């Protein structure tokens, strides 16, 4: 375990963390403000990736494809909101779960029908391809650094938006007490649409940004969705700050766990069982972390709502 | 006989049911309970009044065990209950009603009360036998319902009761627990004139049977019922004494009562 290795793994963890943050941010907003559990948030991430691939095929320019994908994802998200979600806001959480689960099933199959089951890919934009030398012998892909940077930038943007604008004020108030916000005479429908559209775009952005690294395939949003839920629950539902910190925490714990679990286990057991047990423990780590956090802080690290 | 009065002759209570000793509660920087010391005597009806935000409900929540005080002790029937959870305190004979109606909406009125009876004297770790067919429990529950005037509403779902009936049901649930001390958090809140009067008469009948701590905004009711009154402002006891003494207390008049009284 050289320091170089640790540094790179920390960067990897950060990259995974900001990706999770981009997805969790929308999820926690929608959940916090609208009290709406949107399981279909993960497929919006998948859709962002597929749309970016599709538009790239048309334009051959990553950035134009990214913008078009975001616009298309927004339109699609608002369409879903209009057709299905807005009829679910005053429903019970469980009903929201089953309906949005239905949408997951549908969209996972739909992208397979449209684009085929085979994984698709998107090339890294030319100017960001390649690696830079962090230290002698250790290369790091530039694109991952771009993801980290854009994720942090969006985190900052959200901090400003939520902390210092009128919509942000309403969002914060809504996360604490949605009834109060509507009592203030705010057009809650419009606020919901803004929040929802924004959350959708963030997820789609995450999908498009990761498409050059990961294969684009049906069901790619499902695992990410669960991780995003872990993030917002650890962070405290409705808390942007909580989502940000929890996302980075999960990203780091998961990456470092996967990297070093076996090495650490080897200190206490023979290599062969360590190799078998290590990955299992590494996979479990974030769930253990969540259980621990919730045991000591039953409403997450930064509980936003008073209820 | 009106045996409750003999305990309130003097202000010091000989054998108190409840003793609050220098109770403090802070929410972050906000001080909600600020050194409350209070005794409630056996059989006494003690009213706590004060403006909105004085910390009355917070006080009741601490006594019933839903909130932990920041400092101070709560002594109930000779036991220090400061660190006991709500259910253990209830087992010791502490019952409460809620300011915001808190009956079980999808239970019938009878079942709401029957649960209180069931909690009082039997084990609830019984997995067979129909709970709703247990005659002794139902009888006790019906008696409590009758006491608050809900005798014929037992089979109605609590959610379908009128607001006034729900307030009465709250009371019936508390009575059915046969508590040693009854904490009443604004039992008349939101009820009409007639309904209030009816509840006052119910409470009058109960007076003496249980010790009671009554938090109420309806001054007519308070002065008609209370043996002693404590005035709470900004989390502190401003004054404490018999209704007449409190009525006459210049600090109370200045701080709170003023024109509201007569």
């Amino acid at each position, binding site marked *: 375990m050289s320091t170089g290795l640790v540094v790179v793994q920390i960067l990897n963890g950060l990259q995974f963390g900001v990706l999770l943050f981009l997805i969790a941010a929308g999820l926690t907003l929608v959940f916090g403000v609208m009290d709406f559990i949107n399981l279909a948030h993960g497929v919006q991430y998948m859709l962002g990736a597929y749309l970016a691939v599709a538009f790239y095929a048309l334009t051959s320019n990553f950035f134009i494809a990214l913008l078009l994908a975001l616009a298309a994802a927004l339109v699609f998200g608002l369409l879903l909101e209009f057709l*299905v979600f807005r009829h679910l806001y005053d*429903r019970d*959480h469980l009903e929201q*779960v089953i309906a949005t689960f239905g949408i997951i099933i549908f969209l996972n199959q739909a992208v397979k029908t449209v684009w085929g089951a085979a994984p698709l890919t998107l090339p890294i934009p030319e100017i960001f391809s390649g690696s830079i030398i962090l230290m002698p012998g250790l290369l790091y892909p530039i694109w991952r650094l771009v993801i980290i940077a854009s994720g942090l930038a969006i985190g900052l943007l959200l901090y400003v938006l939520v902390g210092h604008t009128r919509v942000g004020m309403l969002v914060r108030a809504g996360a604490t007490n949605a009834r109060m916000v509507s009592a203030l005479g705010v057009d809650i429908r419009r606020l919901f649409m803004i929040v929802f559209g924004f959350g959708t775009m963030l997820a789609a952005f995450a999908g498009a940004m990761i498409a050059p690294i990961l294969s684009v395939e049906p069901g790619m949003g499902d695992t990410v969705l669960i991780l995003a839920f*872990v993030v917002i629950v650890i962070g405290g539902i409705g808390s942007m700050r909580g989502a940000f910190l929890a996302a980075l925490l999960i990203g780091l714990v998961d990456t470092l766990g996967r990297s070093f679990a076996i090495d650490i286990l080897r200190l206490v057991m023979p290599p062969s069982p360590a190799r078998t047990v290590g990955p299992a423990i590494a996979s479990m780590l974030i769930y253990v972390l*969540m259980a621990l956090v919730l045991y000591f802080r039953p409403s997450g690290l930064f509980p936003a709502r008073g209820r | 006989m009106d045996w409750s009065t003999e305990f309130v002759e003097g202000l010091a209570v000989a054998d108190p049911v409840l003793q609050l000793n220098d109770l403090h509660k802070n929410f972050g920087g906000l001080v909600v309970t600020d050194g409350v010391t209070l005794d409630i005597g056996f059989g006494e009806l003690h009213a706590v009044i004060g403006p909105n935000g004085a910390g009355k409900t917070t006080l009741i929540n601490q006594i019933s065990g839903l909130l932990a005080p920041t400092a101070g002790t709560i002594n109930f029937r000779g036991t220090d209950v400061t660190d006991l959870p709500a259910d253990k305190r209830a087992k010791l004979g502490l019952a409460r009603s809620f300011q915001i109606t808190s009956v079980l909406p999808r239970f019938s009125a009878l079942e709401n009360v029957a649960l209180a009876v069931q909690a009082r004297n039997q084990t*609830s770790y*019984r997995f067979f036998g129909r709970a709703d067919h247990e005659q002794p429990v139902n009888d006790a529950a019906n008696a409590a319902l009758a006491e608050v005037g809900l005798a014929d509403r037992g089979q109605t779902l609590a959610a379908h009761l009128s607001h006034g009936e729900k307030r009465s049901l709250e009371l019936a649930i508390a009575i059915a627990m046969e508590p040693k001390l009854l904490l009443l958090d604004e039992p008349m809140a939101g009820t009409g004139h007639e309904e209030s009067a009816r509840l006052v008469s119910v409470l009058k009948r109960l007076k003496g049977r249980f010790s009671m701590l009554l938090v109420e905004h309806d001054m007519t009711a308070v002065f008609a019922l209370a043996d002693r009154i404590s005035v709470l402002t900004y989390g502190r006891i401003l004054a404490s004494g018999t209704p007449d003494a409190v009525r006459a207390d210049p600090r109370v008049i200045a701080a709170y009562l003023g024109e509201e009284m007569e």
Partner: protein
Amino acid sequence: MTQTLAASSVLPSQQTDRANALPVAIFLILALVPFGAAFGPESYVLGLFTRVMVFAVAALALDFICGYGGLVSFGHAAFVGIGAYAVGIIGAHGVTEMLVSLPVALLAGAIFAYLTGTVCLRTKSVYFIMITLAFGQMAYFIAGSLAPYGGDDGLTVRLRSTLLGFPILQNDRTFYYFVLLSLLVVYFAFRTIVYSRFGRVLRGARENATRMATLGFDVFSFQRVGYVIAGAVGGLSGFLLANATEFVSPAYMSWQRSGELIIMILLGGLGTLHGAIVGAAAYLLIEETLGGITEQWKLIFGPLLVLIVLFARGGLLGLVDRIRGRPGRG
């Protein structure tokens, strides 16, 4: 959120006789399936309905804890998997006696529920959902790392469980009735429990836990006992599943499976018990039928779920009620 649960929790006692006819009809149909199956692909039909009943047992336990206890567990499949692994592991050591494996399956589910429940029940609503998911995932990964018992690949159950050495479950039809009997026992046990004093406390805690505490009920302990019961019955379902598929796999514990169980009880109608059976049957039979019609069956199934939520509150049973013109449940 407990207050807004759309599903009914009308107790069986408060239902009309006509509504009580439904469970009777369900069990009658299930009892007659083998006779119908004899005219068709017998073993296949028996296998399909055995599967339906095995999942119905698990769904019943979930409905008990979720519909009556208000505790939405997103890790219920872990109990099923643990029960299945009890059979698989004991079987791998050459013991097929159900007098051994069945109690172990029940106990293992109960112990896991007790330990995790102690932690989970400190949290509420969505946090409870997520922490149960966390423990479910832990169980899943642990099962996947059991290298001596197949790891991720799972392990084959060489012989169905025996009773006092007799291979009574070997015959598909006998096995079917064994599962049906289990389902019947579980159904009536839960019906009895929800009527009982304990059930009344559990239901009360779902409505308003604070109120129950001020009445003198140690809500945490009651809920934990309820959770343990659900865990044990989940273990029973796992025992049956391992015998039905003659195979045990970590996939039995995946979060997707827990999600499917939740869908089942919602589909049937939460807090009705027989709704759990209807839901399990509906889910698996829809999957089977649509899957037989087209490979793209999920394009139909997904929107179907959305439509059920939008237009059939209270699940399929709620829909039946509505069509009959009775007032909605809940």
